[in-house]
């Protein structure tokens, strides 16, 4: 018993050492994933931000065709970097809707004029409430919604050029 006790500290340390080494080798994924992935879209009813373009309602998504839902803002720098990729996705035949976070019509109009306009609908989320309902923690984020209105995937951060094939693949799988 006494002999065992003597070696207990070393054994404990070895355990901690292994744990910490594992933590070093596989650093934590520090992005915050939405808890909504795999679930139906939450109840959204957002007013249109720009006159003449519809807002966002949950019912619009269960149409049998997958869509992208892009969470963006005119004040967000990575959103500018992401704009060309969204345009490319639109050219590939995809329909993209957007939620504008804490934004104004004038700022968004200027943003779209400068960076291109890939959006079919733009919902106004002046308080960030819809963003929270989606489980999104920042801008830009892009959700892939399948034809049954379920959230299939979440892309955190700006979509880079080399992300496009993967997104198209997931889209294909969601059909």
């Amino acid at each position, binding site marked *: 018993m006494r002999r065992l006790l*003597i070696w207990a*500290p*070393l054994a404990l*340390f070895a355990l901690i050492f292994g*744990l*910490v*080494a594992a933590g*070093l*080798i596989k*650093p934590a994924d520090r992005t915050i994933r939405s808890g909504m992935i795999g679930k139906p879209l939450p109840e959204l009813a957002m007013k249109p931000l720009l006159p003449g373009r519809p807002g966002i309602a949950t019912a619009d998504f269960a149409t049998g065709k997958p869509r992208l839902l892009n969470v963006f803002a005119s004040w967000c720098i990575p959103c500018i970097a992401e704009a060309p990729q969204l345009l490319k996705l639109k050219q590939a035949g995809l329909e993209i809707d957007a939620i504008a976070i804490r934004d104004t019509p004038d700022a968004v109009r200027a943003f779209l004029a400068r960076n291109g306009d890939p959006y079919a609908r733009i919902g106004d989320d002046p308080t960030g409430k819809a963003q929270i309902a989606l489980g999104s923690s920042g801008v830009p984020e892009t959700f892939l919604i399948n034809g049954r209105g379920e959230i299939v995937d979440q892309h955190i951060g700006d979509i880079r050029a080399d992300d496009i094939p993967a997104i198209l693949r997931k889209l294909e799988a969601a059909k």
Partner: protein
Amino acid sequence: MIAEAGLAALWLATGFALVQVLLAWGAAKGADQAGGPMVMAALRRVAIVQGLLALAAFLLLVTLFVQSDMSVLLVVENSHSMKPLIYKIAGAWGNHEGSMLLWVTVLAISGAGVALFEKRLPRGTLAATLGAQAAIAIGFYAFLAFASNPFVRVSPPPLDGQGLNPLLQDPGLAFHPPTLYLGYVGLSVAFSFAVGALLMRDVGPAFARAMRPWVLAAWIFLTIGITAGSYWAYYELGWGGWWFWDPVENASLMPWLAATALLHSVSVLATRDGLRAWTVMLAVVAFSMSMIGTFLVRSGILISVHAFAVDPTRGGFILALLGLYIGGALALFGARIGTVKQGATFELVSREGALVLNNLLLSVILGVVFIGTLYPLVAQAAGVQLSIGAPFFEKAAVPVGLALVAATAAGPLLKWRRDQWNALFGKLLVPVGVAGVAFALVFALGGAQWLPALVLGLAAGLAVASVIPLIRRNLRRTPLHLYGMVVAHLGIAVSIAGMAADGAFKVERLAAIAVGQNVSVGPYRVELLEVRPAVGPNWSALEAHLKVTRIGSAPFDLFPQQRFFANPPTNTNEAAIATELDGQLYTVIGQGDGEGRWQIRAWWKPFVTLIWAGGAMIALGGLLSLIGRVRRERRDAEEAA
């Protein structure tokens, strides 16, 4: 030139450390042979030179920062020519490479100190101790040279540097890391003593007496460092809290808990020759906690909210060093401790018994903090992301802490070796009475909740109990270390009283008010007179002018600020705090709403200052004890000669 000289000094120090290990090996093997004293004398000198070389490297780095030498990468990344001089100096250790250099410098200087001052330990044990100290230094020199070289040049040099994290631009914090490091790394001496004693199978009172002043000194610095760090977080972060159970804070608390336990068990070993294995174990654990703390902070492995990138090379390097030193020491412990004879025994009710209880309770708290700090890593290994907050630590540690306070009150009243329950109860009668009355008063009249009231009651009881050892003594002939104990224990009473008072009676107000309006908090009325711009050497700020009135006294002004630093762009909150005899008024200015109203956050925190006053008393008690011990050792040595 200076950077190259610094690097050269570092390499030379590494060489001397290697020589030191070899000499130590020779001296420990042939301690009793002819020529032993000569090898020993050479070993001492090598250790001293190694310390001086490390110090030279560190001072050369400070010189580079003072001169704003923008051809050195570290200076570029962490300094700016516009910065006030004191922050240029502090910039030298306000970054990874510089702080690691400071770390190893303290390590080498501590080793030099042992070589210089330690005269009474058997030659072999001292040699093994110095060898162990040099072996630790070699690993960290290698870490600096291969993974964290502070002296790297940039070409071409940029026009100016990138500044220093503005949060760190504060006189308190400029000197916080060095203090903490003196404590952290001072514990390395205890570690090396323990390794030396195990290697030479010489665990006894002489070893404990040699180690005690080093443990005390390191513990004093840790106490000051933690107290100062807590106050810095309190006024700089602008949240009005004084402890956040952040991994970085825990990293400093864990060595302190272990050192506190060690401090008490080393007394038992020095005085009564008891607790041999346990004391050696604690000496190993205390410095291991320092190294693990350094690792956790430096590798960025736990600090998820601050999102430093984990650097696998550096993290892996330090982890390998940890495995080598901690694993090595624990393996040595396992192999050797069985051959160490059991020390003196004692009864359950005795001073030793109380100190064992103290050690057990401290170890439990240490375990709680350790588990709470590392649990996110366990969860991560299992694929779950989580963080552990204050509620866990408070729920788990506070009850044990309260038991510890009770043990602290009772321990010094007991006789060594054996005492009677009845005698203890007799002595505790007054403190328990005072505690009960204080609890009843605070609970019934003060309207506090039961837990803070209980803590305040215990604090009052501990305060009374801690001065009892002075009763019926000739105060002039009472040894200084006894005063040290009394002051330190009183400090604990004062500090926890502050914590409980803040928890029970603080008042918080958050209001959006326009100029000319006011908000009341506690006994104060705070009126917003003006919000205006203010400028400093490398920041600009929005400053609120608050007029504060307390019933029955003259009004005064407070100026909380929101500061904007340009290099690098950062915002900080400068709380404005009014300190009065019975507490602090803490004010912060927040965002404006664009329509002329400003968020003003104000706390009235009764007796909160006692927390840090108590911390200062604890450190002072340690200092008194250290002076007393060193003086007595010297007198004993003279008498023996």
